[in-house]
């Protein structure tokens, strides 16, 4: 298991290297000259050229790529913002806790609400509860989270004045974003749980468990759920990873200065390439860790998958 984990960690190096390469190349074609933006219209040509040289933008594509990759992978330095001159890695880490908090809240909510709902629907298949839950879940996956955010703000902040609409002062500031960000997740978990439970409930070993005299609750929660867990784990992991990189819209609406707003507002908005590049690399690393974690959870849940990991090692 340990060797498998180490192998996977090593495998992340080419992935992150690839991500860096792709993102750098795409951004190389970003229209507009950063130098003009930074220096302003009043700068002289000499000033501009000096700035260009100091940012390393006078080098060729390969030269710039080399510098970027070298800094990133050899010195673990994501560079400094063109505009604020602040260290991108430090800024990202400084903002990460807020994004992480929001992401964790959304993922946990999706899991603890979505999974039980899905189980209930599956055990009452085609009944009233099932239809109600499935219709609700369908609505849930269909409401765009940014629109839901606006509706929530309208109701709870503007009309009722219960919760703050913007900012990060207290945990109360995170309630609306967490609801807006998790509703779709809850709905997806409920749908996923229902369909994988339905498949498992039909398995022979569930009949075996019933024939042993196991209580129905235990049949569902002990025997069926654990077997239905793999797709749920996958979804949770993907949701977490996607959320981490997808909170940018929520953060923008609710004015949360997290990783997302940094990339969107400062990076894309200001054409500040080091921020976008750094953000992408940072998120790719985080995402890869998520996926590794998912695989490790697989092994913990299902001995057959664990056995695969181990035999793969034995073959090598």
């Amino acid at each position, binding site marked *: 298991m340990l060797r498998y984990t180490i192998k996977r960690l090593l495998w992340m190096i080419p992935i992150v290297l690839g991500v860096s390469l792709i993102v750098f190349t795409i951004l190389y074609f*970003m229209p507009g000259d950063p130098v003009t933006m930074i220096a302003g219209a009043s700068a002289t040509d000499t000033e501009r050229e000096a700035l260009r040289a100091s940012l390393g933008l006078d080098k060729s594509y390969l030269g710039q790529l080399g510098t970027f990759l070298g800094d990133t992978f050899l010195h673990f330095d994501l560079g400094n913002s063109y505009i604020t001159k602040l260290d991108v890695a430090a800024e990202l880490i400084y903002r990460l806790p807020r994004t992480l908090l929001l992401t964790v809240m959304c993922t946990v909510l999706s899991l603890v609400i979505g999974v039980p709902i899905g189980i209930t629907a599956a055990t009452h298949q085609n009944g009233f509860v099932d239809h109600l839950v499935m219709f609700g879940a369908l609505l849930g996956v269909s409401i765009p989270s940014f629109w839901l955010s606006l509706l929530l703000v309208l109701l709870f902040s503007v009309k009722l004045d219960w919760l703050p609409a913007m900012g990060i002062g207290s945990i109360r500031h995170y309630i609306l974003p967490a609801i807006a960000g998790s509703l779709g997740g809850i709905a997806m978990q409920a749908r996923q749980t229902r369909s994988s439970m339905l498949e498992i409930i039909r398995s022979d070993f569930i009949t075996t468990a019933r024939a042993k005299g196991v209580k129905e609750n235990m049949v569902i929660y002990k025997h069926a759920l654990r077997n239905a867990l793999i797709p749920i784990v996958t979804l949770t992991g993907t949701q977490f990873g996607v959320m981490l990189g997808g909170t940018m819209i929520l953060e923008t609406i609710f004015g949360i200065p997290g990783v997302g707003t940094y990339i969107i507002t400062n990076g894309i908005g200001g054409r500040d390439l080091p921020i976008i590049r750094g953000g992408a690399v940072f998120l790719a690393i985080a*995402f890869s860790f998520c996926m590794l974690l998912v695989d490790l959870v697989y092994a913990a849940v299902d001995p057959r998958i664990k056995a695969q990991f181990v035999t793969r090692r034995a073959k090598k």
Partner: protein
Amino acid sequence: MSVKKSVKRKDGSFRRVMRQLLKNKAATAGIIIFIAEIILAVLAPLVAPYDPNEMDIIHKLQGPSIQHLMGTDDLGRDLFSRVLYGARYSLGMGICATALGSLAGMIIGSVCGYFGGKVDYLVMRFLDIVQAIPGTLLVIVVAAVLGTGFIETVVALSISGIAGAARLLRASMLNVRQLEYIEASHSINCSKMRIILHHLLPNSFSPMIVSMTMGIASTIVAAAALSFVGLGVQPPTPEWGSILNTGRNFMREHAYYMLAPGLAIMVTVLSLNMFGDGLRDALDPKLKN
């Protein structure tokens, strides 16, 4: 158990799927709503009561009324007409981007699925890398680089679907490849291209269709999200996301402004999801009864 499925009717699979679909009321409603929206979008110049870009400052920010079914915006333009015309952009982008992304993905996926080996390995590792970049971020970055036109936005939106479509098609082709009749085609010397076009693709299709239906829904949302962060097609183009984004500024006093485009997005996405769900159940009856 043994009795249950001993007699299974034999029937053309297309007809069986259609019958299943029509029995499913939600799916039928979904596709009817979506087709109605497309027709309305196409006929927008005939249906819309006003020119979507005609300003009327005197009558700005008026709530819904008989004259203006969804009210007017901050420049006095009729919101109903703007949402109708907006369907052209939103639906158009959703359909085009999904089609483009799926097509690219299908080509990649079928090459991988068919040839296997090194080609497959390399392409899959490349997709691993692409998928390690958060989808939203990738679309935003590409949209920022390409610019804000309709076609540029479609291309940016299509990128996020490529990897998924490629994997899906590859996986189902790998499944189908094991089947005996593919071996049979080999043994009668079918050309590789012919096998891909006539045997593998049609059989790998059903999961593709389902994922494309859902893909259109999520692309419409993504397009709106792009407008929301100031990318994608720009005002005064009446795209739903961009109407919503402007409406957001008037949310406190004029809530109706952001309701109309948001509702349009939601109804569209809902109808596509209902249809997609029904289609999946009809194509894969395993989970039914």
